[in-house]
């Protein structure tokens, strides 16, 4: 099945309905302190959040570090929604559209490790962290806050940001676990950078107790966490497990409390295989389904022939059988994506409101051939497609289906398969001659999807797009505070992009969020913030 907007809303509604019962139960139960939570994790390349975009590092630090703001978590939050709440900030105001003032919580203490030894966190720490984030060499996420002109600490508990231009997504960026983890100046000065595990010292709910490379990480409760009584869980054992068969066996035997795939889910391919066994062996498991924000797409050199011709791009999109991809790769359950993935329910334009461009998402090889002929490519054309497997067979399967679909309309694609590092260094940033196929980061708000991929000269503008119409709308949405008006601009952007097909978007899978029933007050969601989602959860076993 492919999910329509209506299905998605139902899904979200079902998730909400399921989740909305949980707080009632939660209120009826008294949270318990203690216990050890076991999860599967990934071995971080290092621990410096300002030196890598790797989810492996950011997930690890979600347990130990705080941000100024965070996304609200728990069973009452519908997966795909990201309400913002204070983390280190107690409150904030926006005196004008380019100024934000944050009041910090008082009495927040760094974890009791040298060189900070539990000293109090102050506004200077925030100023240092933001400036470090913006200026340190090699931070590929720095663009998220490039609207910041200056950050100041008027007093010990106040932080003031002045922006260069209005940027309505500013709070979302601060809350995003990709962005600024608050770190201590002394730690950076002591270690030079934050790559060693010994430098993992934050103000978060857990402290990193030990790190065994390629084996696992152990977190212990931070007794001085600034929210009294939290976290409830004493210990988190995160096991590095790189083999899917091993992970599956471990989960079946009850070793892990969360689904072993990102972000605490089980891939549908595996889920179909193990769900009956799980129903017998682990009858208390809880599940919630929600669409993934990670979508694959074909990017292409739209600044060069033949992709500069919009008819060629339309033909490519119509050549793709998205329903067949959902059937073959996602076990029949997936969501067809417009330019903003369907998972971001608030911002993704429903397909039936996509207007004229909606027809290009329908599989019509005959029309695709006609369009190619009209563009002067009656016999099709040869092309190459840069690709890396990301170590996932599902992506390889989808790539093969895409290649086959394109071949069916005459586009003879040769796969230029690269090693992951080589791919990220070149094709991911638009350095290719013809086409690239692969996934995009599963961002949590639409600006990261749209601005990065479509604004001229942006690093992730893989298709080399320079469209003044879309550029203007991208800037306008960044300056429109009114949510309804902003949503309408973002819908308009997607309608315009659907007509242009600068990227050919593929469907996304529907996640199966899975967790142990004994884990209470937990709600799955997208994103790297594992720690945030577990801070107020407790174990009843």
């Amino acid at each position, binding site marked *: 099945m492919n999910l329509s907007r209506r299905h998605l809303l139902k899904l979200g509604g079902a998730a909400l309905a399921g989740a909305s019962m949980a707080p009632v139960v939660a209120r009826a139960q008294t949270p318990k302190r203690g216990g050890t939570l076991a999860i599967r994790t990934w071995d971080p390349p290092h621990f410096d959040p300002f030196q890598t975009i790797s989810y492996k590092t950011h997930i690890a630090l979600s347990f130990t570090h705080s941000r100024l703001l965070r996304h609200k978590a728990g069973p009452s939050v519908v997966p795909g929604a990201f309400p913002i709440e204070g983390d280190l900030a107690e409150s904030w105001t926006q005196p004008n559209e380019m100024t934000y003032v944050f009041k910090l919580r008082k009495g927040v203490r760094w974890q009791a490790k040298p060189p900070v030894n539990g000293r109090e966190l102050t506004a200077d720490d925030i100023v240092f962290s933001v400036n470090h984030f913006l200026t340190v060499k090699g931070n590929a996420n720095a663009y998220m806050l490039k609207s910041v002109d200056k950050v100041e600490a008027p007093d010990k508990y106040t932080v003031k940001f002045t922006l260069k231009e209005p940027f309505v997504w500013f709070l979302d960026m601060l809350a995003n676990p990709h962005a600024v983890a608050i770190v201590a100046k002394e730690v950076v000065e002591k270690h030079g950078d934050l790559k060693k595990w010994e430098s993992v010292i934050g103000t978060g709910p857990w402290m990193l107790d030990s790190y065994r490379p390629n084996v696992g990480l152990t977190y212990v409760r931070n007794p001085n966490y600034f929210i009294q009584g939290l976290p409830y869980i004493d210990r988190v054992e995160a096991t590095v497990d790189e083999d*899917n*068969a091993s992970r599956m066996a471990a989960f079946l035997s009850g070793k892990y409390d969360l689904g072993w795939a990102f972000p605490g889910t089980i891939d549908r*391919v*595996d889920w*179909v*295989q193990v769900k009956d066994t799980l129903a017998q062996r682990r009858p208390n498991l809880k599940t919630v389904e929600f669409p993934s924000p990670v979508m694959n797409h074909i990017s292409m050199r739209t600044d060069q022939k033949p992709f500069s011709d919009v008819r060629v791009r339309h033909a490519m999109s119509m050549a793709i059988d998205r329903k*067949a991809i959902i*059937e*073959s*790769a996602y076990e029949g359950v997936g969501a067809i994506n417009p330019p903003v993935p369907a998972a971001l329910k608030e911002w993704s334009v429903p397909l039936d409101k996509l207007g004229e461009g909606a027809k290009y998402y329908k599989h019509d090889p005959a029309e695709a051939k006609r369009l190619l002929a009209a563009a002067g490519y009656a016999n099709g054309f040869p092309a190459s497609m840069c*690709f890396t*497997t990301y*170590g996932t*067979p*599902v992506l*390889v*399967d989808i*790539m*093969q*289906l895409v*290649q*086959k679909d394109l071949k069916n309309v005459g586009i003879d694609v040769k*796969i*230029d*398969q*690269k*090693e992951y590092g*080589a791919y990220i260094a070149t094709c991911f940033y638009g350095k290719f001659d013809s086409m690239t196929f692969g996934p995009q980061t599963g961002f949590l708000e639409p600006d990261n999807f749209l601005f990065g991929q479509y604004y001229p000269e942006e690093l992730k503008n893989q298709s080399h797009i320079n469209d003044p119409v879309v550029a203007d709308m991208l800037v306008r949405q960044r300056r429109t505070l009114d949510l309804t008006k902003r949503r309408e601009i973002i819908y308009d952007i997607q309608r315009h992009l659907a007509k242009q097909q600068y990227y050919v978007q593929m469907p996304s899978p529907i996640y199966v969020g899975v967790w142990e029933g004994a884990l209470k007050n937990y709600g799955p969601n997208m994103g790297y913030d594992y720690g945030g989602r577990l801070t107020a959860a407790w174990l009843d076993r």
Partner: protein
Amino acid sequence: MGVDTVRVVGSFTRRKPLGAIGAVIVVALLLMAVFAERIAPHGYDDTIRGARMKPPSAAHWLGTDNLSRDMWSRIVYGARVSVTVGFATVALAVTLATAIGVSSGYFGGVYDLVIQRVVDAWLSFPYLVIVLSVMAVLGPGLLNVVLSLAIIIAAVNSRVIRGATIAIAQGTYVEAARALGCGHARILVRHILPNVTATIIILATIGLGAAILAESGLSFLGFGVPPPYPAWGAMLSGSGRTYMFRAPWMAIWPGLAISLAVFGFNMLGDALRDVLDPRLRGGSAR
């Protein structure tokens, strides 16, 4: 086929039954590789509507995969990758090994010393480290697989060929040729090379199995021939492993194909060694 040929084949089969089975497998593999288009009922990337993960049946002898492709057809086309990599790798490796081994063994002295220390260094690296380094630099692809495997196999084989050359170079007929004023080139081509040919053939046959297995390993790790062209190792590691519980035939057939191919080449290589090596002639080893 003449009477003599039939007699030779019959004799070989009686003396070396495992070798004969190996030969049958190798011939079958060659036929599959050469005539894949005629043997396979479907193209290797043809998707058959409504046939996703169907178990083996009359319509699809080996079943279908998760992308609704006929497994038998993909196994047949996969033989082409194995045979191409096997023969190309061995041809390149043996050529390199012969050049190094024969020259080193024949000339000896400082030249031999230097060359052998280089080979020592070459052999001291774990083979996977060298292969993966080469593949990481050059990228995945058939030619790069051949190159990376050939340089490994060449190092090992050159040592064996050097040993055989040293033994032959001490023969009286080589000494006689030298006394008659033959140059190095003539001695190497007319006297040394013909006498190390049996060793080279044996090394090549045994190397074929090793090359096929190594190619499968590289494809399993994602460094082989890019999809959708089927390579048995990639079929096993990708969808084969993912759907192992629901559609075990997706893993069983490519795994069996690799095992059979390696078994076939190894058995044939063993039998040829027994037949061609004068020291083992008349032995009862099967």
